[in-house]
């Protein structure tokens, strides 16, 4: 079996909500994307408020460019015509994680849109300035 996919690694700055940054980067460049937890079999759109407020995404999830693409991945797995349309995101930023890191596995390194999404993620994950003010205040109080 030939396992496709190449990893990109992004350190996560202290206090940054990695899932929120990933969602916003995808929303900006793939506005119709759908997401699926690695352990679930339900596709969820960005309209689902639980994604944003409830933080119900797990530490490993997939982002598909649109619902049609998601269905293609579920039916065929990795294929020539869908490699540029899915991100496999893994986030290690819990209390027991020594290194706060976001791993994004991509299947088409040459795709411009994917590169833009990764650049947006990298900037947000590394930039403590993107942290909502409430987190900064909490940090100062501590």
């Amino acid at each position, binding site marked *: *079996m030939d396992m496709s996919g190449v990893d990109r690694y992004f350190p996560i700055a202290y206090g940054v909500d990695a899932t929120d940054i990933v969602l916003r980067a995808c929303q900006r460049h793939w506005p119709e994307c759908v997401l699926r937890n*690695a352990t679930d079999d339900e596709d969820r759109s960005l309209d689902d408020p639980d994604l944003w407020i409830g933080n119900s995404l797990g530490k490993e999830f997939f982002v598909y460019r649109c619902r049609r693409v998601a269905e293609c991945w579920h039916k065929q797995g990795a294929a020539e015509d869908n490699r540029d349309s899915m991100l496999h995101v893994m986030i290690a930023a819990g209390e027991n994680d020594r290194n706060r890191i976001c791993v994004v596995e991509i299947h088409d390194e040459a795709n411009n849109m994917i590169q833009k999404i990764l650049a947006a993620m990298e900037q947000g994950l590394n930039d403590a300035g993107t942290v909502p003010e409430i987190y900064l205040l909490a940090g100062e109080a501590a």
Partner: protein
Amino acid sequence: MTAHGSLATGGIIYHYTDKTGYQAIIAVSDWNFRARHPRHPRKPHGAYFTTLPPDTNNLAERIGVSKMKTRYFFSFTDSGDLHPLNARRPVRFQVKLYYPDDYLVTVERQCQHGENPLWT
């Protein structure tokens, strides 16, 4: 390069393949998983495996293979000589393994093989 040691869940390793690959491997008593050159130039030459069992949700997505290649599986006990394919990942996400040459699994290490019951 270090062998993955304790990465495998429960010490069981899995290999997935299609019908043609499955029939070739079971044709002899000792399973021989052939090393191949992957399409990606930076991926190592080798035989590829995973720690994820057949009932794993989104199996094809998680290991980056076509759905057809998850139709048949082999499982065998880990002997600690496989390498993580994504060594920089946090350990919990290191589910892909490889061996840089053909990989022989003798009868004593073999567990199960057959059609993936959840394959659709």
